[in-house]
């Protein structure tokens, strides 16, 4: 469902934080978030975080390195974190992802 929502016009927004400024500009950050969500696999899933918003966290591979991705699951999909992993993370399926 998340992939479908994020692919729709206006279905994906990215929270602007200092970490997202890792990307060259806002357009590149948005494109990277879209691409990261489109390429998600079930084996990338780390955990669901239930605060006021329900968020899913994933550890993904991007350009050969491990990245952390967290977003809200209710539409629109709001990407809260997208940055290189700070430490090795194990996904729910037991896969270890290195920074």
């Amino acid at each position, binding site marked *: 469902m998340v992939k479908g929502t994020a692919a729709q016009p206006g279905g994906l927004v990215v929270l602007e934080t200092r970490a997202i*400024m890792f990307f060259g500009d806002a357009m590149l950050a948005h494109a990277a978030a879209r691409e990261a969500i489109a390429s998600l696999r079930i084996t990338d899933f780390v955990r669901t975080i239930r605060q006021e918003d329900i968020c899913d966290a994933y550890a993904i591979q991007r350009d050969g390195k491990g990245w952390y991705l967290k977003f809200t699951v209710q539409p629109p999909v709001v990407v809260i974190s997208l940055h290189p992993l700070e430490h090795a993370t194990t996904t729910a399926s037991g896969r270890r992802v290195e920074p």
Partner: protein
Amino acid sequence: MTKFRCVQCREGMVRPMTGPGRTTWMGNLRELPIPDQIATLGCESCGAQYIGAEAASVTEAVRPTYEARLRELAASAADALLRAGSRSGDLERLLGLSQGYLARVRSRKAPSEGLTLLLMLLAEKPRARLAEARRLWERASNAGIRTKAKRARRSRPVRAAA
């Protein structure tokens, strides 16, 4: 775009906004002002900014300011280097730029961030760093000559002992 609750403060609604005071980043430059008429997504309560499908128009609208800022930084650094006694042509040669490049930067050409940074680094201590740059190029050239000489010595045929 439907409105949604801000994930940062969880109080305000996020909606398209226009007007002054909004900024974005491009490359290594932060706090670039977004033109008043360009819409971005922001929280009406805490002011958190969001990047949505409008990101492309924001980037295009901010690019002229970004490039002008790079030109300004590069020109000001080049001025400091010229004031320290370097001539424009010498400076362009040292940096591997074509003749007249720095004049074009002053008028219209946006320099790369790499060149801008290099000029700023040199301009921090103009005399010392220009001398260091010349020394580095000289050392690199001599290293090339030494490598060539070494290769030539190795490939020289050994004369048989009489």
